[in-house]
Every structure is written in C-alpha cells, then in structure tokens.
C-alpha cells in the first residue's frame, strides 16, 4: 500500500520534472559492535542452529564477523537440555534435542563475559493445504510469486511467518501475517517481491512457520522496514530486543509446515 502511494509520489515528481537519484556520502556515526543472535528450534528433526555475529558500521562491506567460542545452551520446560557445538565459526548446532509443540524453550548464550537469554514457546503446527507459484503483478511489473494456502485454526490467536528457500538459502525479505482479521478462515498468502528473480524450473521449499507473538512482532517490524526500501517510514526503529542482556536478533520456537514446489 505505502509502496504504491510512494511510487505515485515519485511518479508524479518524475512525470512533472524528472526526479533523480544519486548515491551520496553521509557522515554516519559509528557504533560499537553489538552481538547478533539468530536462533530457532522447531518441530522437525534437528539439528537446530544458532548463529552468532556482530554488527558492522554502515560503510563497511557486509562481511559479518562471526562470534566463536561462545557457550550456547538450549533447554525445554519438558526437561530436555542440550549444549550446542560450534560447527563453523559462529554457527552452533544442537546435538540431540528434539523440539515439541507446547514446550517453552530457553536459549542461553554466554560470550564476552555476558549472558543473554530468551524464551519462546513452540506453537502447534498449522498444516499447509497447498503451495504453488503463479505470475502476479508486483511493483515494477509482473513476477513469479510463491503462494501458500492454509486454514487458520479458529478461536485462537495465531501468528505466522513465511520463508521461501531456494537450494537451502532463504530468499530475501520478511513475510508475516496474524489472524486478527481472519480467524478461522482459509488464507491464501502470496509472497510478493520484486527481487526473488524466480525462473521456471527452480525448486522452492515454501515454509509456513507458526510462531510466538514476540517472534511475529520482531519479523513484522523488519518486514515494515525492509519492505519499504525507498519508502522508509520517517521514524525507522529497531525491533524490540527479545534477549535479556540486550543482544540484537531473535530466538523463535516455531512449528513448520513445508511443501516443495517447482516453479512453473
């Protein structure tokens, strides 16, 4: 919506006068590196991964510094517990823990003399009815768009995030939905993006994640900021920290339903 309107602003400007864009040098502040934690546990067989990295200054290349040699623990309210092992620098994997719906998990990370913890409860999975790709209009023309279809469980608040993976790599962008306006309905959710660049024959894994409210809020804020691109809100902000101790990033216990589709 906002995109369309702001496209119109630029269009009016361009139409009337020929607006122009230019890369400029800005003297942005530098900030001390901060820890970034990306961690999840789900209802599928493990291992589950926790990635530790650090922030960079705006003008540095995107070579995210890995944070190695940290102590990473995952434990569940059902008494399960695991100590993660570092498989590649900054990437920690569980050894035996198996995620279960209804269990509250606690992630604890110790590094640099600090301890960071977060909790998340794994929701019940919501099955995908179907998933496919089709040609739809996105900003800047038509594109192949992944579509996920599922029925929202009635009578409860549900929160979703969506991920499309190609050859194991998530496609860019953040996609979220809550059922506030459509509790119990059959939901068709296209993942519209003008930079997926899908080609006929690509194999995609489309995932529906049932997530806890805190994870939904986290990705919702990112979807607002990232999806806007040109049209940033006047007061962009960081998503609220999910970690005691104040690290950036998220910890999400999530129930995953997935389908593999071939782009046609």
């Amino acid at each position: 919506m906002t995109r369309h309107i702001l496209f119109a602003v630029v269009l009016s400007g361009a139409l009337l006068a020929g607006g122009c864009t230019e890369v400029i040098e800005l003297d942005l502040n530098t900030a001390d590196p901060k820890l970034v934690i990306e961690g999840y546990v789900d209802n599928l067989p493990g291992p589950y991964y926790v990635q530790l990295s650090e922030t960079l200054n705006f003008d540095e290349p995107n070579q995210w510094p890995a944070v190695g040699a940290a102590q990473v623990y995952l434990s569940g309210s059902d008494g399960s517990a695991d100590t993660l092992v570092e498989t590649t620098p900054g990437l920690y994997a569980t050894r035996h823990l198996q995620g279960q719906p209804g269990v509250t998990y606690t992630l604890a990370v110790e590094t640099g003399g600090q301890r960071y913890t977060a909790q998340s409860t794994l929701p019940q999975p919501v099955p995908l009815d179907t998933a496919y790709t089709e040609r739809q209009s996105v900003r800047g023309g038509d594109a192949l768009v992944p579509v996920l279809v599922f029925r929202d469980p009635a009578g409860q608040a549900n929160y979703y995030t969506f991920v499309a993976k190609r050859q194991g790599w998530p496609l860019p962008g953040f996609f979220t939905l809550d059922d506030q306006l459509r509790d119990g309905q059959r939901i068709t959710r296209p993942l519209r993006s003008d930079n997926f660049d899908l080609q006929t024959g690509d194999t995609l894994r489309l995932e529906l994640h049932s997530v806890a409210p805190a994870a939904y809020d986290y990705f919702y804020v990112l979807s607002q900021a990232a999806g806007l691109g040109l049209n940033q809100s006047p007061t962009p902000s960081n998503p609220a920290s999910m970690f005691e101790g104040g690290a950036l990033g998220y910890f999400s216990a999530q129930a995953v339903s997935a389908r593999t589709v071939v782009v046609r």
Partner: protein
Amino acid sequence: MLKKCLLPLLLLPLLLPAQDTQYTLSGTVRDSASGEELIGVTLRLTGAAVFGTVSNEYGFFSLTLPAGSYHLEAQYVGYASIGQVLDLQKNTALDLRLSSGMALREVVVQAQKAGEHLSRTEMGVEKLNVRDINRLPVLFGERDILKAVQLLPGVKSAGDGNSGFYVRGGGIDQNLILLDEAPVYNASHLLGFFSTFNSDAIKDVTVYKGNQPAQYGGRLSSVLDIKMNEGNDQHFHGSGGIGLIASRLNLEGPIVPGKGSFLVTGRRTYADLFLNLSKDEDLRQNTLYFYDLNAKANYRIDDRNRLFLSGYLGRDVFSQSENFGIDWGNATATLRWNHLYNPQLFSNTSLIFSQYDFKVDVRAGDNDFSIVSNIRDWNLKQEWQWFPGNSHKFRAGFNSIYHTITPGEILAADTAVFSGNEFQDRYGWENAAWLAGEWSAGQRLKVSYGLRVDAFSVLGPGDFFTFDAAGQRSNTQTYARHEIVKTYAVPEPRLSASYVLGPSYSIKASYARNAQFLRLLSNSTPGNPTDRWTSATNNIPPGISDQLSLGWYQNFGDGQWEFSAETYYKWLQQEVDYRNDADLYGNPYYEADLIYGKGRAYGLELYWKKKTGALTGWVSYTLSRTERQFADVNEGRWWPARQDRTHDLAIVALYQISPRWSVSANWVYYTGDAATFPSGKYSINNNTVFLYTERNGYRMPDYHRLDLGATWQSRPGKRWQSEWAFSIYNLYARENAYTITFEQDAYDPSKTEAVRTALFKMVPSVSYNFKF
C-alpha cells in the same frame, strides 16, 4: 481565574458614564468595480477626537460616536483611500466603495503613517494579498496560496514542492484550514504538490499562528482562514488560464445587479496526457490527474439580511496499470445567513458540511478488494458581533459539529486477501462556545480577551476497548446509538494586548490555549492521502497547547516598511507517536499502538516587509526549536521532532518594471529537518538489517532554491485583458533531498549505500491568463 477577570470587563461599557448624545455609523465596504466586500478595511474618523475601526469578515463595520462633524478616511492595501466629511446627527448607514488601482497607490502611502499593523492586538497573524500571490514565481505555472504561506516567518514547507506546512513546530494535522468556514481535511492535490485552492476563486487569506481569536478552535498550531470571492454583482466577467499542466476557468456575474452575484471556478490538470508520450509501456498505463470546482452565490434580501451559498468539490485520481487505483477528494458546502438586528448588532449563522474521502482499489488476481474511507462533518455555527460604542467590540457564539469517521482500513497489498471485515464507524459530537471582546483603552493600549470552551463527546454505537499497560486488550464495552462513551472539555482562555509606544513602534503580548480532538495518524513522510483521521476516543485524549508570545513592531519610511520581531514559546500536551511495531491500518485495536508525550516549541521570527513602491516584498527569518519527550523514545530524553528546523529564511521581491512588465524572485534557504539514519547494520536470515541508535539523531542536508518569475500584461483599458506569466523554479538546479534511503549497492551486494532522491531540478513554465 481569567474568567473571573473577564466579567467586569464585559460590563464596563454599561458602567461608563453617559456621554453626550451618541449615534451609530454602520455600513459595508465594497470594491467599486466588482461589488466584492472588502475585509479588514481601516476606517478612521477624526473629529473632536479620533476614532477607528476595521471592517469585519463580511465587510461590515459599526461604530457608535458622539454627535458631531467628522472627517472619515477608509484605507485598504492596494486601493485608493477615500476621505469624506460627515455630519453625524442621527444613526447613519453608509455604503463605502473603494477603487483598486496601481496608479493611486501613492495616495494610500500618505494615509498609512499610523499603521494598523502597530495597534491591532492580534499577534502571529498574517494576511496575504492575493494579488501579490499571483505575481510570485511558481512550480509548473500553478499559483498556490499554500506555497505562498510557506514564505512567511514561522511557517515551514513540508518538503520540496509540497503544499503541506508546519506552523511553529506543529504537525500538518494541527493546521485548521477553512474554506468559507468549512474545514478542509486534505488540502493537497497530486500527492502534495498542489493545494486544493484555486487562487482565481480566493478573496482573502489569513493565517493565525497559534494566537487565534476565540471564534477559532479545534487545532493546536494554526488557522488558515480562506474566503472565496463573492462574484461581481455589477457585470458578467470571466477569467481563466492555460498552463503547462492545468487549465482554469472562472465565470462570475450578477444574479440581480447590485443585489446578488454568483461565481463558478473550475480547474483540471492534464499532466497525465504526457504519460502517453512515454516509451515505457508501464508508465503509459498510469493515470494521474485532479480537478476542482468552486461555486458560490449570494443574495441580499434586504438591508438587514443576506444569504450566501458556497461549495467546493475536488478529486484526485491515480491508477497504476490495472492493478491499483486510488482516488480521493474533499467536498464542502456552506450556507450562511447574515442578519443585522440593529446597526450595532451583527449576526451570522452558518450551516456547514465537510467531507474527505478516499477509495482504494486493488486488483491482483484473486486478491481484489476495495476500501472506502471517509470523515464527514455536519456543522452549525452561530456568531453575534456587537459594537456597543467606540472603544468596545464583542463576539459571542457557539459551534456544534457532528463527526462521522469511517476508518481507512488498509492491508498491505502484499499481505494477501482482504477478508471483507467491516470496521465500525466512529461518531463524535464537538461543541464550542466563546465570548470575546476587544477594548481600546485610550489611544495607546488595546486589549483583546476571550474564553472559548471546547467539548468533545465520543458517541456510540460501537464497541470500545480498554488496554492494559502492555497494550493488550483487557475489556470491550458496547455502547448504543447516541450513548456518550466519554466527554472531554477544555476551557481555552485567549488574551492579547498591544501598546503603542511611539508614533511608529509598538509592543504586543499574547497567550492562547488550544485543544484538538481530531488527529491524523501517519507513519509516512510527508503524508499520504490514505493517512488515517481519528477522533478522540476513550483511549485517545485531546491534544492541548499553550502558547505565549511577545513581539516588537515598527514602521519605517512613512509606513513604506514594516518590521516585526516575535518570539513564542509553546507547551504541548498529549502529543501522539507510535510504538515501534505500530500497525495503523487494518487494525481495529490501533489505539494500543499509540503513545503519548510532551512537546515544546520556541523560536524567534523576524519579518521585514516593503509594502509600497515599485519594489515590494519581504524577508522572513525564523530561528526555532521543536522537541518532544516520550517515556519510551530515546530513553525519555527530549529529541527533535521531524519538523525541527533551526534556520529558515525566505526572501521575496516583486518589482514593477513598467505598467506592463513585472518581475519577481524568491530565494528560500533552510537547514535540514531531523531524520533517523542508521548507525550500523547486521544480518538476519541473510537480509541486511539497519541498526538505529537514536530517533531523529541526524539532519537532512540544507535546502535552498531560487525561483524567478516575470509577468507581462496586455494594454489596460480593453475588454479582453491577457497576461503571460513565466516562471523558473529552482533556477540553479540545486538537487535538494526529498528522501535519503539506505540500500544495497546495485552492483556489489556486499555493500550498502545512501541514496538521495531529488524531485525538482530546474523547472521552467509558462502560462497564459485572460480576463474579460
């Protein structure tokens, strides 16, 4: 407190010792050629003593004086002043007619030594001369009163080429824009680049920067009071213009000569025709245009009764190929009845309708949906003006508005189906009553005082929610039709005084409180047609501002030059901001996403103005600070609001080279607005995410721009008058930043870069205007 002081003042005229026999001189001041009433004409009567008054918004004046012989002078900028000898031996009605004319200006100069500028009590008020506005250089040849207003001290543009404005640190929604008394909720066309006001139809523009008199209320920062022309009541006339992107036509004439007149003005843009020339198929499928229509009629039933009917209709239409369409617009209608009970008591009754609506259509495969949203007011306003003597004037009135708000429910287009949920309309009943007076205490001191009480009742039917501290809904209560959910009442004292210190200088002080019950929720810059209007609710309190101003006023060079310096300090309560994860659209519980804080704004405004001669114009400079404080933002510290702009300078010059050629120039410079830029970045799920350390901790680059204009007029005296107007906007093609965004480098995804978007480089334009 203040109320207690007021009552004795009100009674003063009744307690004054009976003087010699007194008679009332009353009447109307009009333009001699068109019959248009003139607002704010200064009348001065010199006899045994000197008396004065000013014509009101309907051109009416009334003054009660001791019997005797007087010399009457009437003065008005741009008009020849008139003088006549008058022997007042009975109540006298007088119709005054002033002639406009350049050649006669020198006469005016002579008469304006003791400028009304010095003695009137109102502060922070500016009246714009429509004739001057029409000579300013403009963007695309479209004359625009809102852009002219932005050249005044204390009024700041909301962005390059934008007609939105900020007054003394207030938001765009804190300006009450009235067109013939009807509030206009969205005063811009084409996404902000043009105002909804076609200057062909406009008679008078007055802006009050927070210290508005008691008859105005409902917004915190300013009132922009725009009056439409009445239409020529003597002869049929037409005028119009053909410009690069729009054409205009204005027709006016008598209904019954001397008794009634009408006016119809229309405008339509055709910029989208250029889209068809584009090679880009996608561009060619876009539609983008607006039109507006003003109409007005008035009829003088007899000497004591007059009716006015005026209306406005404007609409913007935008569609992007076949996927997306939006159209929006305002409609207003005002029916007014002027009644003179007696030569001392003037009354006006207005019935006003105002509506703003937008409609969005999204057509994308299975996900078609439309959303209709509007805000609609029915408004009854009654005011009496009483002129009991020569040193007192009073106003009393009430206003009752019934608001219906159908919320703008939008889901992001990439968030799939709109399920067809209906959102409840919201109803509000806004009532105000005011009592105000103006007292000339001798030749030097003048005091205006008033009390306005504003009340807003949130009405059912509907479900109203309560939220806990964490923003979770804790209770829902259902109210029946017309049931009162909550009432807010705010007493608003207004006081201002002027003291003339010497023949050419004066000081003034003023205080005003304002309350605002309707707010615009917007999380975009500089504002979208789909921004959401919300009324006060059980959760959303009204905003309140208190403003204190002090000023120094001086005339130079026999009144050719005016200078003023004003300072203000404004305290704001219950300013609105949003939680970080606020979802303002498609969310019936949006109230939980709002947070409230304090604001403060202060500044110094300097204004030099040259009013007469071949060279006229002004220099305005504003030094100001606008800050906000919210418990949850920037750790509770004060932070600069987006519209915080430290320095703002405008230089405007109009030069009459010859009777047929005039040129104009303006130069605008301001330091950058506050902005939030990233101070770092990190990676989440393979996406680059920016790290923000502080709200509005950065500044946009400085803005400056020079515009030139020239106007050529055909030989006067002929029936068909024509004029060519040339403008160059942004002469030296400065690339002023409209937005700065942060993106991945298109060629090297491992890098991020800051990208500046500039909209208007040098834009020349020409338009042809005619009159017959």
